[in-house]
Protein backbone atom coordinates (compact mmCIF):
# COMPACT_ATOMS: atom_id res chain seq x y z
CA UNK A 1 0.00 0.00 0.00
CA UNK A 2 1.22 3.50 -0.81
CA UNK A 3 2.30 5.89 1.91
CA UNK A 4 0.86 8.73 -0.17
CA UNK A 5 -2.70 9.80 -0.81
CA UNK A 6 -4.46 12.76 -2.38
CA UNK A 7 -7.67 12.14 -0.44
CA UNK A 8 -8.39 13.14 3.17
CA UNK A 9 -6.61 10.82 5.60
CA UNK A 10 -8.93 8.45 7.44
CA UNK A 11 -7.36 7.82 10.83
CA UNK A 12 -9.51 4.79 11.63
CA UNK A 13 -8.12 2.97 8.60
CA UNK A 14 -4.57 3.47 9.84
CA UNK A 15 -5.50 2.44 13.38
CA UNK A 16 -7.01 -0.76 12.02
CA UNK A 17 -3.78 -1.68 10.24
CA UNK A 18 -1.67 -1.57 13.43
CA UNK A 19 -4.15 -2.85 16.00
CA UNK A 20 -3.19 -6.12 17.62
CA UNK A 21 -4.26 -7.83 20.85
CA UNK A 22 -0.65 -7.69 22.04
CA UNK A 23 -0.35 -3.91 21.71
CA UNK A 24 -1.75 -2.05 24.72
CA UNK A 25 -0.57 1.42 23.78
CA UNK A 26 -1.06 3.35 20.57
CA UNK A 27 0.39 6.78 19.87
CA UNK A 28 -0.84 8.87 16.96
CA UNK A 29 0.62 12.01 15.48
CA UNK A 30 -1.46 14.23 13.22
CA UNK A 31 0.12 17.15 11.42
CA UNK A 32 -2.53 19.64 10.34
CA UNK A 33 -2.40 22.69 8.14
CA UNK A 34 -2.13 25.65 10.41
CA UNK A 35 -3.11 29.29 10.22
CA UNK A 36 -1.38 30.57 13.31
CA UNK A 37 0.27 33.89 14.14
CA UNK A 38 3.33 33.01 12.00
CA UNK A 39 1.28 32.08 8.96
CA UNK A 40 -0.45 35.37 8.14
CA UNK A 41 -3.71 34.30 6.59
CA UNK A 42 -2.88 30.92 5.11
CA UNK A 43 -5.98 29.31 3.61
CA UNK A 44 -4.45 26.09 2.33
CA UNK A 45 -1.15 24.41 1.57
CA UNK A 46 -0.23 22.73 -1.69
CA UNK A 47 1.92 19.68 -0.92
CA UNK A 48 4.13 18.11 -3.57
CA UNK A 49 6.72 15.36 -3.37
CA UNK A 50 9.36 13.30 -5.07
CA UNK A 51 6.86 10.49 -4.86
CA UNK A 52 9.00 7.46 -5.69
CA UNK A 53 11.60 8.55 -3.15
CA UNK A 54 8.95 9.24 -0.49
CA UNK A 55 7.78 5.66 -0.82
CA UNK A 56 11.33 4.37 -0.46
CA UNK A 57 12.31 6.66 2.40
CA UNK A 58 9.13 5.98 4.41
CA UNK A 59 9.61 2.26 3.84
CA UNK A 60 13.11 2.55 5.28
CA UNK A 61 11.84 4.54 8.28
CA UNK A 62 9.17 1.92 9.00
CA UNK A 63 11.81 -0.81 8.83
CA UNK A 64 14.01 1.15 11.25
CA UNK A 65 11.12 1.35 13.73
CA UNK A 66 10.75 -2.43 13.65
CA UNK A 67 14.48 -2.81 14.34
CA UNK A 68 14.60 -0.30 17.20
CA UNK A 69 11.34 -1.15 18.99
CA UNK A 70 10.67 -4.85 18.82
CA UNK A 71 6.96 -5.57 18.62
CA UNK A 72 6.07 -2.03 17.53
CA UNK A 73 3.71 -1.69 14.58
CA UNK A 74 3.58 1.53 12.61
CA UNK A 75 1.49 3.01 9.81
CA UNK A 76 2.07 6.31 8.00
CA UNK A 77 0.08 8.26 5.47
CA UNK A 78 1.15 11.58 3.90
CA UNK A 79 -1.38 13.54 1.91
CA UNK A 80 -0.41 15.52 -1.20
CA UNK A 81 -2.20 18.20 -3.20
CA UNK A 82 -4.20 21.11 -1.87
CA UNK A 83 -5.00 20.71 1.83
CA UNK A 84 -7.23 23.28 3.56
CA UNK A 85 -6.44 24.71 6.99
CA UNK A 86 -7.40 22.29 9.74
CA UNK A 87 -7.07 19.10 7.72
CA UNK A 88 -4.29 16.58 8.26
CA UNK A 89 -1.28 16.45 5.97
CA UNK A 90 0.25 13.49 7.78
CA UNK A 91 -0.90 10.78 10.15
CA UNK A 92 1.44 8.42 11.95
CA UNK A 93 0.15 5.57 14.09
CA UNK A 94 2.45 3.50 16.29
CA UNK A 95 1.23 0.63 18.45
CA UNK A 96 3.43 -1.25 20.90
CA UNK A 97 3.04 -3.63 23.83
CA UNK A 98 4.09 -0.79 26.17
CA UNK A 99 3.24 2.87 25.88
CA UNK A 100 6.77 4.28 26.12
CA UNK A 101 7.69 2.47 22.92
CA UNK A 102 4.55 3.66 21.17
CA UNK A 103 5.42 7.28 21.97
CA UNK A 104 9.07 6.87 21.02
CA UNK A 105 8.32 5.11 17.73
CA UNK A 106 5.71 7.69 16.72
CA UNK A 107 8.03 10.57 17.55
CA UNK A 108 10.88 8.92 15.67
CA UNK A 109 8.80 8.67 12.51
CA UNK A 110 7.71 12.33 12.46
CA UNK A 111 11.23 13.58 13.22
CA UNK A 112 12.68 11.43 10.42
CA UNK A 113 9.94 12.57 8.03
CA UNK A 114 10.87 16.19 8.72
CA UNK A 115 14.54 15.38 8.17
CA UNK A 116 14.56 12.95 5.25
CA UNK A 117 11.30 12.64 3.33
CA UNK A 118 11.24 14.77 0.17
CA UNK A 119 7.96 16.67 0.48
CA UNK A 120 7.50 20.38 -0.11
CA UNK A 121 4.77 22.82 0.67
CA UNK A 122 3.60 26.05 -0.81
CA UNK A 123 1.42 28.24 1.39
CA UNK A 124 -1.56 29.85 -0.31
CA UNK A 125 -2.99 33.00 1.22
CA UNK A 126 -6.32 34.75 1.03
CA UNK A 127 -4.65 37.66 -0.84
CA UNK A 128 -3.61 35.32 -3.66
CA UNK A 129 0.09 35.20 -2.71
CA UNK A 130 2.02 31.95 -2.59
CA UNK A 131 5.19 31.05 -0.67
CA UNK A 132 7.38 27.98 -0.74
CA UNK A 133 8.00 27.02 2.87
CA UNK A 134 11.67 26.86 3.81
CA UNK A 135 11.96 25.64 7.37
CA UNK A 136 15.08 27.69 8.00
CA UNK A 137 15.70 28.59 11.58
CA UNK A 138 14.59 25.09 12.38
CA UNK A 139 17.19 22.33 12.05
CA UNK A 140 17.27 21.47 8.37
CA UNK A 141 18.73 18.43 6.71
CA UNK A 142 22.31 18.48 5.55
CA UNK A 143 23.65 15.91 3.14
CA UNK A 144 26.38 14.98 5.64
CA UNK A 145 23.78 13.93 8.21
CA UNK A 146 22.12 11.49 5.86
CA UNK A 147 22.98 7.98 4.78
CA UNK A 148 25.36 8.08 1.85
CA UNK A 149 24.37 6.78 -1.52
CA UNK A 150 26.43 3.62 -2.17
Amino acid sequence: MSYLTRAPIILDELLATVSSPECGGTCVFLGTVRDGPDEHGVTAIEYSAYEEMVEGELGRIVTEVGERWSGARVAVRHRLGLIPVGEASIAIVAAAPHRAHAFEACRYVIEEVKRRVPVWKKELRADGSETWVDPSGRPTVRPSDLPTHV
Partner: protein
Amino acid sequence: MERPALSGTIRVRFFARYAELVGRAEAAVAVSLPATVGDVVRRVREQLPGARAIPERPLAAVNLHHAKLDASVGDGDEVALLPPIAGG
Protein backbone atom coordinates in the same frame (compact mmCIF):
# COMPACT_ATOMS: atom_id res chain seq x y z
CA MET B 1 48.19 5.07 -24.24
CA GLU B 2 45.25 7.12 -23.00
CA ARG B 3 41.89 5.49 -22.83
CA PRO B 4 39.16 7.44 -24.60
CA ALA B 5 37.13 9.51 -22.13
CA LEU B 6 33.85 7.83 -21.21
CA SER B 7 30.74 9.89 -21.00
CA GLY B 8 27.40 9.17 -19.42
CA THR B 9 23.91 10.57 -19.45
CA ILE B 10 22.30 11.48 -16.13
CA ARG B 11 18.59 12.00 -15.72
CA VAL B 12 18.22 15.07 -13.51
CA ARG B 13 14.95 15.78 -11.73
CA PHE B 14 13.76 19.07 -10.24
CA PHE B 15 11.12 19.56 -7.59
CA ALA B 16 9.07 22.33 -6.01
CA ARG B 17 10.88 25.69 -6.16
CA TYR B 18 13.77 24.30 -8.21
CA ALA B 19 11.33 23.03 -10.84
CA GLU B 20 9.83 26.52 -10.99
CA LEU B 21 13.28 28.13 -11.34
CA VAL B 22 14.32 26.00 -14.33
CA GLY B 23 10.82 25.76 -15.75
CA ARG B 24 10.95 21.99 -16.05
CA ALA B 25 10.70 18.83 -13.99
CA GLU B 26 13.61 16.97 -15.57
CA ALA B 27 16.55 17.15 -17.96
CA ALA B 28 19.13 14.79 -19.46
CA VAL B 29 22.69 15.95 -18.73
CA ALA B 30 25.86 14.52 -20.28
CA VAL B 31 28.93 14.23 -18.03
CA SER B 32 32.44 12.81 -18.45
CA LEU B 33 32.98 9.74 -16.31
CA PRO B 34 33.93 9.23 -13.57
CA ALA B 35 31.62 11.94 -12.20
CA THR B 36 30.07 12.98 -8.92
CA VAL B 37 26.78 14.52 -7.93
CA GLY B 38 28.65 17.80 -7.59
CA ASP B 39 29.77 17.54 -11.24
CA VAL B 40 26.15 17.07 -12.29
CA VAL B 41 25.06 20.09 -10.26
CA ARG B 42 27.76 22.22 -11.93
CA ARG B 43 26.67 21.12 -15.42
CA VAL B 44 23.06 21.83 -14.59
CA ARG B 45 23.84 25.32 -13.26
CA GLU B 46 25.95 26.10 -16.37
CA GLN B 47 23.64 24.71 -19.00
CA LEU B 48 20.02 25.23 -17.97
CA PRO B 49 18.36 28.65 -18.05
CA GLY B 50 17.32 29.67 -14.56
CA ALA B 51 19.44 27.00 -12.85
CA ARG B 52 21.96 29.54 -11.48
CA ALA B 53 19.37 30.25 -8.79
CA ILE B 54 19.75 26.70 -7.50
CA PRO B 55 22.34 26.67 -4.71
CA GLU B 56 25.83 25.40 -5.52
CA ARG B 57 25.42 22.75 -2.82
CA PRO B 58 21.80 21.65 -2.88
CA LEU B 59 20.36 18.64 -1.14
CA ALA B 60 20.51 15.77 -3.63
CA ALA B 61 19.47 12.18 -4.14
CA VAL B 62 20.79 9.47 -6.44
CA ASN B 63 18.38 6.71 -7.47
CA LEU B 64 15.93 7.58 -4.66
CA HIS B 65 18.53 7.73 -1.84
CA HIS B 66 19.96 10.85 -0.24
CA ALA B 67 23.50 11.39 -1.50
CA LYS B 68 26.42 13.66 -0.73
CA LEU B 69 27.85 15.86 -3.45
CA ASP B 70 30.97 13.68 -3.67
CA ALA B 71 28.95 10.52 -4.33
CA SER B 72 29.78 9.05 -7.72
CA VAL B 73 27.24 8.74 -10.49
CA GLY B 74 27.19 6.64 -13.62
CA ASP B 75 25.43 6.44 -16.94
CA GLY B 76 21.67 6.11 -16.50
CA ASP B 77 21.56 7.26 -12.89
CA GLU B 78 18.78 9.55 -11.69
CA VAL B 79 19.98 12.59 -9.77
CA ALA B 80 17.34 14.67 -7.99
CA LEU B 81 17.97 18.19 -6.70
CA LEU B 82 15.87 18.74 -3.60
CA PRO B 83 14.84 22.09 -2.12
CA PRO B 84 14.81 22.29 1.70
CA ILE B 85 12.50 19.53 2.89
CA ALA B 86 9.22 20.74 4.36
CA GLY B 87 7.04 17.66 4.76
CA GLY B 88 4.93 16.38 7.58
